[in-house]
């Protein structure tokens, strides 16, 4: 019978929604246990949030000063120690999980599965590769732990109506000091919803033309209560921060509404938005590949159309309809 250990992603205060998606993935093959491990300097608040996830059978708090900031080299040996007795060790396919889980797998002497999008059983999984141009079905051997990352865009977050017991664990493994956290620089957000979990996202591409013009994107996002995203071209050109990049090598997202403005739609971008509910493309180039996947396309000059759209939607929000 499968027993799953999930590594919680958090910032020391709040549990990241990616963890609830890992729980949903695990629950889909009905294992006998879904335990969530919280590595922190003081994991009380995060553990309580994890314990509330429907489907979780237990939360294991590993409090240690070295766990103040998540470092893969520090967390991996602790997870390897904790993984005894589990058949599966899962993390999210966010930069946190992608950094960490291969290191865990290699310490355990096993391979790792990236980006699980569907679990046909506890040992049979689907995952995308070639920038989402193909889906692979693979079977993992049952005689060794399955270490994997879960493609968060493929799963709904587990509800928070649960009440799993919380326990404390002390790790015996000696922790490395060769890797040290310095700081996190974050300049985007502006009080907007988180790109990875937002139900609405407005993204800008090269067509936006400059970082000043990117305000057009931000105003439309604000009129919709949406998060802001960007194509790789826009990030490379310095119009937007790296944490806003959507696509194969950026964030894979699944909002209910995705509005792409001035984005031509390279395959690397499309792979990041395939699971969106409704995709809208606004571009003056009617040949832009994004129109091939868009549910609604508008061929127009973005500098006229986007402010007009923001105005129309803002009015709607003000009138409460």
């Amino acid at each position: 019978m499968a027993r799953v250990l999930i590594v919680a992603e958090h910032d020391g205060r709040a549990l990241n929604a990616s963890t609830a998606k890992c729980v949903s993935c695990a629950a889909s093959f009905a294992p006998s246990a879904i335990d969530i491990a919280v590595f922190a300097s003081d994991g009380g608040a995060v553990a309580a949030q994890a314990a509330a996830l429907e489907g979780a059978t237990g939360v294991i708090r590993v409090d240690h000063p070295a766990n103040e900031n998540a470092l893969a080299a520090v967390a991996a040996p602790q997870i390897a120690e904790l993984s005894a007795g589990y058949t599966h060790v899962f993390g999210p396919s966010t930069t946190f999980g992608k950094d960490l889980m291969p290191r865990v797998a290699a310490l355990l002497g096993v391979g790792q599965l990236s980006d699980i999008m569907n679990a046909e059983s506890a040992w049979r999984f689907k995952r995308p590769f070639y920038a989402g141009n193909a889906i692979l079905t693979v079977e993992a051997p049952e005689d060794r732990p399955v270490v994997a990352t879960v493609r968060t865009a493929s799963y709904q977050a587990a509800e928070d109506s649960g009440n799993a017991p919380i326990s404390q664990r002390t790790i015996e493994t000696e922790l490395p000091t060769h890797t040290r956290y310095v700081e996190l620089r974050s300049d985007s957000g502006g009080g907007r919803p988180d790109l990875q979990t937002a139900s609405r996202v407005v993204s800008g591409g090269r067509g936006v033309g400059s970082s000043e013009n990117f305000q057009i994107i931000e105003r439309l996002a604000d009129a919709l209560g949406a998060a802001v995203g960007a194509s790789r071209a826009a990030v490379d050109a310095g119009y937007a921060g790296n944490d806003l990049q959507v696509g194969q090598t950026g964030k894979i997202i699944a909002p209910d509404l995705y509005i792409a403005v001035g984005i031509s739609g390279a395959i690397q971008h499309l792979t990041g938005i395939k699971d969106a509910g409704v995709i809208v493309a606004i571009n003056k180039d009617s040949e832009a590949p994004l129109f091939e996947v868009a549910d609604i396309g508008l061929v127009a000059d973005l500098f006229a159309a986007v402010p007009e759209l923001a105005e129309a939607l803002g009015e709607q929000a003000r009138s409460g309809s």
Partner: protein
Amino acid sequence: MTVVDTILVPLKRVVDANVRVRVKPDGSGMALDGVKMSINPFDEIALEEALRIRERGETGEVVVVSIGTQVWTQQLRAGLAMGADRAILVETDQELEPLTVARTLMALVEREHSELVILGKQAIDGDNNQTGQMLAAIWGRPQACFTSHLRFSDRVATAMREVDAGLEVIEVDLPAVVTTDLRLNEPRYTKLPDILKAKKKPLQTLSLAELNVDPEVQFRVLGIEPPPQRPSGVKVSDVAELVQALRQKGVV
């Protein structure tokens, strides 16, 4: 001042990033016949970074390594033309899982006494994003993954990492593994004289057996299929129609 004597840069041969690859109709694999192949773009960035480190006098040599068939020497020669000093091909016709690739790189690190390995954060075919982290784990050394800025001071590397929340700065002691993100640098173009010069640079061939690596296969591939297609949408002619369409879909 030299920080490390030898930097290893693994190069993977992949389908060119501009090619739209498709699943073969019979689902047996990807249709790759006659398709343009290139150095994995992230690995090219890794090589560029290693060359810049050498140009700053912080390393003695840059060695490019590949693990594949003889045809992979095309990418190694391209790496030599970019400026690498020498190349190693670990010859195999098997498709290796990332853990085996990491074990092979570990054997090469020991053989070459390298103290810094720079490689792409992921290959654009497998999209696994694992090899660098696995190498660091097996080596018992630090990893600086998804790096967009890298500097050295004595035996410490300071890396800026592109993470979901923004840019994270970490310090790692050498030896270490660095994986590259897109914005670390812009790789140089190769000039014709360099391509000619590259033909004279040393290229050594080894086998997995010589490196004592067992190419075990852990994951069994049961099938490959194309992704589900989104149904085609509608075009609207102005913003008013767009708002109308959004309302009809119930998303605003």
